[in-house]
C-alpha cells in the first residue's frame, strides 16, 4: 500500500510540475464557464432550474473532452517510461509491477479528479454567485454528474494503460489512443444510429439496444446523467429514452467495470512483459 502511494505522489508531483494539472483545470473551467453563461441564454435567467441546464451542457462537454484528456495522460504511462529507460530503474526497486501501475492510476486519477472538481465547481459556484436559485435536487444531480465524469475519466485512463502496456512504441500508443477515442466518442454512436435506421425496429429490440449502449462507456455516462433526474431528462430531451430501462446503479456498476477490467488486464500484461 505504501509503495502505491509513493508512486501516486510522484505522479501528482510530476503533473503539477509539467503544468498538466494547471492546463486541464483551466481548460475545463474556461469551457464550463462559457457553457454555463452562453448555455443559459436560450432559457433566460428566469429559469428556475439553471443548474440543470448546465448539467446537460457540461455532460456533453465531458463526453468529448475527459476521455481525450485521460488518454493523453495515460497512453504514455508505461511505454513512455520503458522507452526513456526510467522503468528499468524503477522496477529494480522493491516494488511490484502492479503497484507501479496502480500507483500511477491513483496519481493520474487524482489529477483528473482535481481538474474536474475545480473546473466544473467553478461553473456551479459562478452560477450560484449570480443569484440563480438552485434546489437540493439540482445540487445532487450536479454532484452525480461530477462524480460520474471522474469515473468516465478513470475508464479512459485504464484503457490508456492497457494500450500503453500492449505496444512497444510511444507513437503506436498515441495512434491507438486516438482511434479508441474516435470509436467510443463518435463512430460507435453513429454506427448504432445507422443500425437502428436500417433495422426499423425489426430485430433490435429494447433489451438489445440497452445491451449495445452498455458496450460503450460514453453512452453509459450519457444515460446516467441525462436520464438520472426527471427534470434533467426533460431538458435534455431524453425523457423516456432507452436508458430509462436501466437503473442508475446498474449504469454506475457497468461504468466501474469498464475501468476495472482494462486496469486488471493491463496489470496482467505488464507483469508478463520482458524488459
Amino acid at each position, binding site marked *: 500500500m505504501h*509503495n502505491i502511494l*509513493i508512486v501516486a505522489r510522484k505522479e501528482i508531483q510530476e503533473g503539477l510540475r509539467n503544468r498538466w494539472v494547471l492546463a486541464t483545470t483551466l481548460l475545463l473551467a474556461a469551457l464550463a464557464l462559457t457553457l454555463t453563461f452562453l448555455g443559459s441564454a436560450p432559457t433566460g435567467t428566469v429559469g428556475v432550474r439553471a443548474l440543470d441546464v448546465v448539467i446537460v451542457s457540461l455532460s456533453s462537454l465531458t463526453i468529448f473532452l475527459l476521455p481525450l484528456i485521460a488518454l493523453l495522460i495515460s497512453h504514455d504511462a508505461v511505454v513512455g517510461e520503458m522507452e526513456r529507460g*526510467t522503468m528499468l*530503474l524503477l522496477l529494480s526497486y522493491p516494488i511490484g509491477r502492479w503497484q507501479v501501475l496502480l500507483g500511477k492510476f491513483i496519481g493520474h486519477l487524482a489529477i483528473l479528479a482535481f481538474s474536474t472538481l475545480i473546473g466544473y465547481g467553478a461553473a456551479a459556484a459562478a452560477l450560484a454567485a449570480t443569484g440563480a436559485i438552485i434546489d437540493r435536487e439540482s445540487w445532487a444531480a450536479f454532484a452525480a454528474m461530477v462524480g460520474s465524469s471522474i469515473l468516465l475519466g478513470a475508464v479512459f485512463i485504464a484503457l490508456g494503460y492497457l494500450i500503453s502496456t500492449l505496444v512497444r512504441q510511444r507513437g503506436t500508443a498515441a495512434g491507438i489512443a486516438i482511434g479508441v477515442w474516435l470509436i467510443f466518442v463518435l463512430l460507435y454512436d453513429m454506427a448504432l444510429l445507422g443500425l437502428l435506421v436500417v433495422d426499423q425496429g425489426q430485430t433490435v429490440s429494447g433489451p438489445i439496444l440497452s445491451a449495445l449502449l452498455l458496450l460503450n462507456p460514453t453512452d453509459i455516462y450519457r444515460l446516467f446523467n441525462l436520464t438520472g433526474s426527471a427534470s434533467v431528462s426533460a431538458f435534455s430531451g431524453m425523457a423516456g429514452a432507452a436508458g430509462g430501462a436501466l437503473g442508475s446503479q446498474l449504469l454506475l456498476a457497468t461504468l466501474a467495470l469498464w475501468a476495472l477490467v482494462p486496469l486488471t488486464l493491463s496489470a496482467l500484461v505488464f507483469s508478463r512483459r520482458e*524488459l
Partner: protein
Amino acid sequence: MNTMVQVADVSKRFGKVEAVSQVSFELVEGETVALVGHNGAGKTTLMKLIIGLIRPTTGSLRLLGEDPAAGEFTARRRLGYLPENVSFNAALTGRETLAFYARLKRENPRSVDPLLERVGLGHAANRRVGTYSKGMRQRLGLAQALLGEPKVLLLDEPTTGLDPALRQSFYEIVEELRSGGSAVLLSSHALTELEERAGRVIIMNRGLKVADGSLQELRDIARLPTRIRVKARDDGMAEASAWFGERDCRRVNGHTLEISTPHDGKIDLLRRATSAGSPIVDVDVVPPTLDDLYSHFLRSQERAPCTTS
C-alpha cells in the same frame, strides 16, 4: 565468507538469441568483481537476471539468499543498481528524484542531502533533472544506487560521462562499501581503470563466461609475454640491440627498445639489463594489461567455442 549472489548454470534465451548461456559464478561479501565483455556479451542481461527483472530460461539464481524473481522484495532493499544510460524524469529536481527512490527503499528522505553532497551534486539539488548534464545525471544515478547502504551493488558502465576527478571519488565510494562487506559487480569498457580496482575479473563473450579469476591468475593462465622497455644511453642503440641478443624485440623510438619475454624469463632479462657494462639507463616493466588478457581470452574462445571457463 557469505555468498551474496549465486548464479548457477543460468541461461537466458530471447527468441532465437541465447543472451546468456550456462553461466555460473558467485559473489561473496567484500569483493569487487569486474564484468568484462563486448557489447552484446550478456553483461546487462546477467545483471537484470540477478535483480530479478527477467527470469532465467534454465538454471537458478540467488540474491542474498532469495530467488530474485519470486516477488519477495526484502533482498532488493539491500541492492543498489545503476543501469547503463540511466535516465530520470526531467520535471523533478535532483532532490525530489532521490527522495522518491529513498522512500521506495524505506529510507528517510532526509538522508538524500548528504548523499547528493557525496556525489558532488549538492549545489544542483534544487535544479530540475532536465537541466543536468550527462555527467550530472550519471552522478545522480550513482547516488540512487548508494541509497540504503546496499549489500550488493550492480553497476553497469558506471563511469561513462564522469570526469577523472569524479571517477576517482566514485571508486573511493565503491571501495568504502566493499571494505564494509558489500559485494560489488561492475562492468566497464575502460579496462585499464578496472585493473587496479577489481579483485576478480569475469570475461564474457557471446553469452559465455570465458574466464574468471584474479588478474594474476588470469595472467598465469594466459601466459602472455611481459613487455620490458629499456632505454639505451645516447648513441648506444646498436649496442643495446646486440646486448639482448636473439630476443623478440622492437624499436619504439631513437633510444627505446621493447622486448617481449615469457613470464619466467623476466628476471633473467632484468638481470642482464642491469648487469655491469650494460648500455641501458632506464627500465620499464609492462605486465600484460587487462586489455591484453581480454583479447587473449576472446581469441582463445573463438578458436575453441566449447570451453566455458
